[in-house]
């Protein structure tokens, strides 16, 4: 037996409710939530789709750690007594839990709760749209296609594995205090398109301008929480740091070329 302590919300009302779930071997937190929804209380709601860490729908806060319910095992989570500071980054405060055989489930932080464990993803998607997350050179593909070396493909793939689950956004202290902060997923996406040889230079520069501010790469606390919680092993912090290095170079290049024009 395992207890699921779930944060409920309906309109303005917020309360915690504990459900007793019959545990079976290999049970994920998502399956435990299905048990609650199907056997105990049909009104409880949470998002899900693929059940296999591909779609990124079931992001939630499990024992205070943002993660995917489908990838979290009940057996692992039910007796987690402390939050592993190593996993959560050096600045994470360990949280000591007293109840055994209990899993605390809450909605993903930093986004508005719509009901129970369902958050409004709209804000996250709006932030994503700011950096135009697509390759702009769709119309002028050279004969034979745009080729990319396997080495570069592998370098970019680390970032394209992102499933936009927003788990990183829920872990981010900068996103917690600043609604305009683009967040780890969006910022690393900007870096991914900078690396892409198919993308036009002017679009890359436009993306740099969009992230060259306090709401962008300079707002990051560099505490690696996003990197620690990412279910697909994307490294947003690395992408943010790379842009912090690259952006000044671009500015210098731009200034030099402007200076040259001036001389002419």
């Amino acid at each position, binding site marked *: 037996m395992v207890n699921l302590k779930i944060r409920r919300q*309906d309109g303005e009302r917020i309360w915690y409710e504990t459900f007793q779930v019959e545990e079976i071997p290999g049970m994920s937190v998502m399956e435990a939530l299905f048990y609650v*929804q*199907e*056997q105990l*209380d*049909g*009104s409880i*709601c949470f998002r899900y789709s693929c059940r296999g860490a591909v779609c990124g729908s079931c992001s939630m806060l499990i024992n205070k750690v943002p993660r995917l319910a489908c990838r979290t095992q009940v057996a692992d989570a039910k007796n987690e007594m402390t939050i592993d500071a190593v996993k959560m980054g050096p600045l994470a405060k360990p949280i000591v839990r007293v109840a055994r055989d209990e899993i605390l489930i809450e909605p993903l932080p930093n986004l508005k709760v*719509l*009901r*129970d464990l*369902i958050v409004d993803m709209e804000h996250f998607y709006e932030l994503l749209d700011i950096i135009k997350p697509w390759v702009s050179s769709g119309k002028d593909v050279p004969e034979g296609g745009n080729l990319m070396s396997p080495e570069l493909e592998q370098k970019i793939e680390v970032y394209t594995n992102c499933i936009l689950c927003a788990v990183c956004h829920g872990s981010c202290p900068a996103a917690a205090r600043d609604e305009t902060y683009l967040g780890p997923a969006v910022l690393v996406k900007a870096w991914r398109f900078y690396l892409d040889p198919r993308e036009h230079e002017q679009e890359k520069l436009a993306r740099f301008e969009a992230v060259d501010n306090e709401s962008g790469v300079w707002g990051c606390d560099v505490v690696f929480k996003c990197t620690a919680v990412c279910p697909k092993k994307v490294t947003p912090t690395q992408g943010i740091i790379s842009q912090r290095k690259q952006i000044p170079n671009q500015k210098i290049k731009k200034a030099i070329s402007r200076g040259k024009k001036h001389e002419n």
Partner: protein
Amino acid sequence: MSSDKNGMTPLEGLYAVGECACISAHGANRLGGNSLLDTIVFGKRAGEHAADHISGKETPSDEAYMGALKDEARFISDLMGEEGENFAAVRDELRTVMQQDVGVFRDRSGLERAVDTIRQLIEKGRSVRVKSNARSFNYELLNAIELKGMLELGQVIAMGALVREESRGAHYRTDFLESDDEHWLKHTLAYQTPDGPKPEYKDVTITNFQPKRREY
């Protein structure tokens, strides 16, 4: 759903593309990773065709939809209630029979048992009631509605597999191990009628690749 190359189904104005559609681009089963053709190519074709199809046509008034909306509202309110079957109980039974008798290995006795069991489950499914009256994200209601579709689809899958006395693609009959092109080189389509699903067949479009025995 039977779709032509523009995604249009036999019901004019209704388009189907992707996994729900039978455009006949793939053989007896679409292999994993090949969905791009349906999404990128036929999705675009259907979108363009639909846009052309409605351009110049008058938009029907809201009243024209009211009948259908009222039917839907009645269907949902009839599903609500404290006393009745739990959708999950019926779904679990359907899941078991589909897994055991309509799964990877199929034969006549198993499929006959499945057709019979599903018929009973459809009856049982009529007494499913939804307790939660949440107005948003009501998954219990969503699941109850989906169950109705799952039962109907399970029924036509089992019936189609029972009649198809051959093996082809993912359809593997342990009592009919070979493909039978003479009788069965065709798609099975099922139409809902007041007397239950009625099977019909559609020719397979064959262009460059002739069907052949799978030997790997």
